């Protein structure tokens, strides 16, 4: 049997794949957080709850309306994005002139409210969501067995990340967003409706979280606490990548997912803390993060 650093190749690649899948979720979620923080300067603590809402939306659409995974992959992010836009327009927008701490406290309260409501309605236990038939099963790559759905998650999250990056870096709308990040008042003086841009941005960030939630539903169980479990790691990813950096969020998401996966192979005891150790080291050496403006 082929070995890498004393570890069987199959085990090594298996953990690499798990790391890549986790990294896909970290990247998608931290991307949404970075988009929101970049423009709104709000640390969106409700991001984990919005991820959970996406997964629940897929589950409820299937249970009550018979809407399948593929349609849910579009509808759930739209619904959660709309919910996010309403929250921003009616509540969050009132806090922009105050200390950023108020935005953090508001979204923290919102997350607790959403999660508490879902725990009351559906209980704390996870509920299964089946892999769509077209993506069921797996394929033998010779050196490892690849579940098709997990391969799909890696590919589709990569496409979503690149698509969002292109939207922000290469389009007129993205130029508005980047300019508004630097000087909101001047951008408004140019005739751009920045309050609308802020609403759309929060909606987009929420929709990205919900998209990750739908992708996660068949892998992890759909549970009111699924967002709480992942959001702390995602915050670490955003800090390592550089607060507000889109490319930083994407690259660091995958990188830390893989680092976590490989730690499970070489030193499993440290796998739960490796991301936070990396975060501490990065903060000491580059406080603005790997891709932050001061880096």
């Amino acid at each position, binding site marked *: 049997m082929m070995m890498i650093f004393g570890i069987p190749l199959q085990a090594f690649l298996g953990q690499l794949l798990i790391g890549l899948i986790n990294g896909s979720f970290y990247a998608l979620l931290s991307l949404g957080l970075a988009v929101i923080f970049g423009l709104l300067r709000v640390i969106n603590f409700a991001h984990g709850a919005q991820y959970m809402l996406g997964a629940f939306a897929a589950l409820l659409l299937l249970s009550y309306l018979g809407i399948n995974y593929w349609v849910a992959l579009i509808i759930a992010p739209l619904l959660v994005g709309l919910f996010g836009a309403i929250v921003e327009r009616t509540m969050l927008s009132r806090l922009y002139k105050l200390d950023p701490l108020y935005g953090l406290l508001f979204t923290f309260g919102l997350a607790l409210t959403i999660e508490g409501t879902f725990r009351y309605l559906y209980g704390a236990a996870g509920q299964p969501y089946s892999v769509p038939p077209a993506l069921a099963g797996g394929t033998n790559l010779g050196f490892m067995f690849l579940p098709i759905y997990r391969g799909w998650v890696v590919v589709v999250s990569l496409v979503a990340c690149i698509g969002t990056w292109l939207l922000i870096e290469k389009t007129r709308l993205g*130029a*508005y967003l980047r300019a508004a990040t630097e000087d909101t008042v001047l951008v408004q003086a140019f005739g751009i409706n920045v309050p609308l841009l802020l609403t759309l941005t929060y909606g987009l960030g929420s929709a990205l979280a919900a998209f990750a939630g739908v992708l996660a539903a068949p892998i992890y169980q759909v549970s009111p606490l699924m967002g709480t479990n992942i959001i702390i790691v995602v915050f670490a990813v955003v800090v390592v990548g550089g607060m507000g950096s889109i490319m930083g969020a994407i690259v660091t998401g995958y990188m830390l997912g893989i680092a976590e996966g490989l730690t499970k192979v070489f030193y499993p005891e440290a796998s739960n803390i490796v991301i936070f150790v990396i975060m501490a080291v990065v903060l000491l050496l580059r406080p603005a993060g790997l891709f932050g403006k001061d880096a």
Partner: protein
Amino acid sequence: MKPLLQLGNLNAWYGESHVLHGVDMTVGEGEMVTILGRNGVGKTTTLRTIMGIIRERKGEIRFDGRDMLSVPLHRTAHAGIGFVPEERGIFATLSVEENLMLPPVVAEGGMPLDEIYELFPNLLERRTSPGTKLSGGEQQMLAMARILRTGVRLLILDEPTEGLAPVIVQRIGEVLKKLKARGMTVLLVEQNFRFASKIADRFYLMDHGKMVADFPVAQLPERMGMLNTVLGV
């Protein structure tokens, strides 16, 4: 000359501070008007109040007969007023061309891109560079050029020559003369009196948050004594 911009008894506040004390001013269509005054008398504040950046304001602001006091900041440009701020406002995360294309076109008649590049050839050469990598003079050109694209009828410029080399100041003067020849209305705040005296049709002198004198360029020689006293030129 048909008035394009009219200010009547305009007052403005920064929080508790009352900074404009009843500004009266008229800018005619196609005119180039310069506001003169020492530092801190309210020149920049007047421009920012016209744009709607300062929202605590009372009095009258009319643009082409339309009341602008209730117009939100992001609709001011759509009414036909373009603003080039003192700090130029070039965005670091945008390339020169992205900076140039950022303000939306608000009306027909804006300067086409190829004409802009003809007027400011440096911008064409450096169109892919980050905006803030340009020299001060080039940044000023870019700040002006991006507003010319939009088709606004009134161009508001805040201290366009500040901190620039004489050769660049001369170039900006030439550009403003070209704009005037095209019929563009320009309202300018300028500390460089010699520069302003060569291009403006009319002057307002500002002191303590209001206009204290208004005269055409032809009266400049007889007003020099007063200007020397107020501005120390």
